[in-house]
């Protein structure tokens, strides 16, 4: 909530309540987000079965009492796997977004503040990343660096970098000669200190909106990569892989294997997108669409 604090510090509670009250969808997104976070934290503790326990006698059972989401081709409980996978998917997305937020906003701030060569190099680099279809670039990176979860995080972080660089660069650029920055400079602050203490807090609100929108993409991206067999390896529970495992059964009528993980994945991404829209309404009412 740092974002809201900065944007509307004097009357935060009323503004927050006003925006959420006017748009119940945002409130719903916040609640849903809380639920997902709880799931990611306590998932393994509340899953009814061991997500890796196989039981070939109970393979491909439709949803029923005891197995609310049914069982997959080797008899694993799908509900348990969906619940446990939340930590995996959220972990990947969070790590990737945190990484691109940290590196992207640092690079973008420097580019916007110093201008000149720094700006040219950073902008060129970010343009080069944007010259690729992003998912394809992620595929290439993971294929090149090796098929591990760490590289999925790295690839997702790299393809999201340009968005942070752009936002941070633009926000710093308009403020680099603002009165408060001049004042800070005159009173003897170093460039690093001005960037960190005076400019960085100003770019937080727009980047936070970006973070929330990006989380959804990052989850989609990670799940997509796992779906085509990159990154997370079976039998590890992850939503994209579970959909891939269910893909071959859906055309013969066993819909539950792919449907439940797919639907939860969709809900998670939906939640982040709503949250991003809601945060933008809170922070920048002019950009509401």
């Amino acid at each position: 909530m740092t974002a809201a604090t900065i944007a509307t510090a004097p009357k935060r509670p009323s503004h927050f309540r006003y925006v959420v009250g006017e748009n119940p969808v945002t409130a719903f997104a916040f609640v849903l987000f809380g639920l997902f976070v709880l799931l990611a934290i306590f998932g393994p503790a509340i899953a009814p079965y061991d997500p890796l326990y196989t039981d070939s006698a109970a393979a491909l059972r439709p949803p029923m009492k005891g197995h609310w989401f049914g069982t997959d081709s080797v008899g694993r409980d799908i509900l348990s796997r969906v619940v446990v996978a939340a930590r995996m998917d959220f972990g990947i997305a969070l790590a990737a977004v945190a990484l691109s937020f940290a590196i992207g906003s640092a690079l973008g701030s420097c580019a916007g503040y110093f201008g000149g060569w720094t700006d040219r190099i950073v902008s060129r680099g970010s343009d080069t990343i944007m010259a690729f279809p992003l998912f394809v670039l992620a595929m290439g990176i993971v294929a090149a660096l090796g098929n591990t979860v760490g590289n999925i995080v790295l690839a997702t972080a790299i393809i999201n970098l340009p968005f942070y660089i752009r936002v941070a660069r633009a926000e710093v650029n308009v403020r680099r000669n603002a009165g408060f920055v001049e004042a800070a400079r005159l009173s003897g602050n170093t460039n690093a200190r001005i960037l960190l203490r005076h400019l960085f807090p100003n770019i937080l609100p727009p980047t936070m909106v970006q973070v929330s929108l990006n989380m959804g993409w990052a989850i989609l991206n990670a799940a997509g990569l796992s779906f085509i067999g990159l990154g997370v390896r079976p039998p590890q529970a992850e939503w994209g892989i579970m959909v891939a495992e269910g893909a071959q059964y859906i055309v013969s009528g066993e819909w539950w294997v792919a449907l439940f993980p797919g639907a939860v994945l969709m809900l998670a991404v939906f939640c982040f997108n709503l949250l991003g829209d809601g945060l933008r309404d809170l922070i920048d009412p002019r950009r509401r669409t």
Partner: protein
Amino acid sequence: MLATIAKRLFAAIPSVIGVIVVTFVLTRALPGDPAAYFAGPAATTEAIEQVREKLGLNASLPKQFVRYVVDLAHGDWGQSHSTGQPVLTELAQRLPASLELTLCALAIAALVAVPLGIVAATRPGSWIDHTCRIVTTAGVSLPTFFTGLLLAYIFYFLLGWAPAPLGRLDPYLTAPPPVTGFYLIDSLIAGDWEVFVSSAKQLALPAVTMGLFVMAPLARMTRAAMLGVLTSDFIRTARASGLAKGTILYRYAFRNALLPVVTTMGMVFSFMLGSNVLVEKVFAWPGIGSYAIEALTASDYAPVQGFVLTMAVLYVLLNLAVDLTYTLIDPRVSLDG
């Protein structure tokens, strides 16, 4: 006009160079020793060393880069280990399938999203507007591979309306003689109605799957752009002068809102090329995306590199096309700026 095109082509060169550098770096970072691969499993260390020398893998990185670029320019994109074919030939064979799918999906998305966005903008706050907001937010949340499966389940398994999600054509039919490589067009050229219907049926589900995914950003941008234009002064003047509603909406407002919409189409194409891979896998579509996945699972690196490069070049070309359409839509836009 030709001069502006040439100028814009020139401006695309840095992105192409960037793309080639990145793919080169990715090639060198790939796991596995290509020399060992080429020499075969029974090769001695000496034989591997010889192959390495022959492939130029002992040279310095800048030298290797020059060699890489020269090879690319000569059309030598390496060979696929699993099929033994040159990568460029295979990519060229499979590219039309991917393009046909992507362009159809874009057409579907634009035909639905643009009118939806216009209607939502003319009636802000109405139920259509709210539907538009929900649809657009839900649309960007859809994992393409999941919607594809869902559509296949509903329309193939439950309703039986769609053919089995396997490939571009009914297995009992033969492909039309290739002219453009697009089955829809080729079958019409050959006058083969049966093939046309069959390929249209096969194409429907994957194209709709991809279209759904990109409908959202398009509808959202159309709505936002139209809202912006509709509140501007010249529209108020047009209204006050008593022009017909349709004339105001389409002749005055929409033409001015078109620019950001076309920009979004360019951006959306990036998503589409990515989701292409997933959709092709779900529907066993024989395009370059499924080619890359097959190669990935076989740890066959040359096709993957060729695929990444092709996609990037396609995307650069598309952005070029988008920039050029600007000048057609809006004479005020000059490419010099």
